[in-house]
């Protein structure tokens, strides 16, 4: 009886899981919502200033483990593709920029790409951020092409594929 009960329980879970499995990458279309936020070092960051470049927007927070883990990789990607018309744009979603500034300041490999602070979550809402971290790829025309949720080791290969194909346009 007990083995059958356990099997029944597992079948029930599998059934529920089938209804709620998330999609990790969604294709979207349409113009990327415009925004202007204050950034690191007091600079103002406006999305329109990057028109003509491929933009990879990464929504992150210091309290999010996978976000911290992927940061050095984002710096590598930025350095490699910047000369070809690419920019990385990190959007920190915390209400107080102090934690992010402190963490960025202590990095062994400092980031050189722009970091913006979305203190009232307006931009996160506009982009329907559904997971942490979330990465949005915007093409040279300013349209959202792909949205990727989460970060697991190896996801950077997916990022590179998207960037290379969009740079060719």
């Amino acid at each position: 009886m007990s083995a059958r009960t356990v099997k029944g329980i597992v079948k029930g879970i599998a059934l529920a899981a089938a209804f709620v499995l998330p999609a990790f990458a969604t294709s979207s279309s349409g113009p990327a919502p415009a925004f202007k936020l204050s950034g690191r070092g007091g600079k103002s960051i406006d999305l329109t200033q990057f028109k003509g470049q491929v933009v990879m927007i990464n929504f992150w927070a210091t309290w999010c483990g996978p976000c911290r883990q992927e940061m050095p990789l984002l710096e590598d990607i930025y350095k490699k593709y910047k000369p070809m018309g690419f920019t990385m744009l990190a959007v920190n979603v915390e209400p107080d920029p102090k934690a992010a500034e402190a963490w960025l300041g202590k990095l062994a490999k400092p980031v050189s790409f722009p970091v913006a602070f979305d203190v009232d979550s307006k931009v996160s809402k506009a982009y329907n951020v559904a997971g942490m971290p979330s990465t949005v790829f915007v093409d040279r025309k300013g349209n959202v092409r792909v949205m990727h949720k989460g970060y697991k080791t190896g996801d950077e290969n997916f990022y590179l594929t998207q960037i290379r194909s969009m740079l060719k346009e």
Partner: protein
Amino acid sequence: MRIRGLLVLPVLALAATGCSSIEPWVKPYDRENLADPIMVFTRAPISQDFLDHVFESREGSRGATGGGGGGCGCN
């Protein structure tokens, strides 16, 4: 004991919730406080297991002492 039937019910009910039109009301970018290490129910499992054992061996009650949830919801 109709345990099997009982246990499948809440699963189906929640599966239905998954396809309804209610949106998760706490957004992933608002999970800062929930991700704080002080917000876990059990900070030190080794200590909690020991205390649970101390109580269970002196009391008539047993069960329903565990539970998880919360956290940063990353990935």
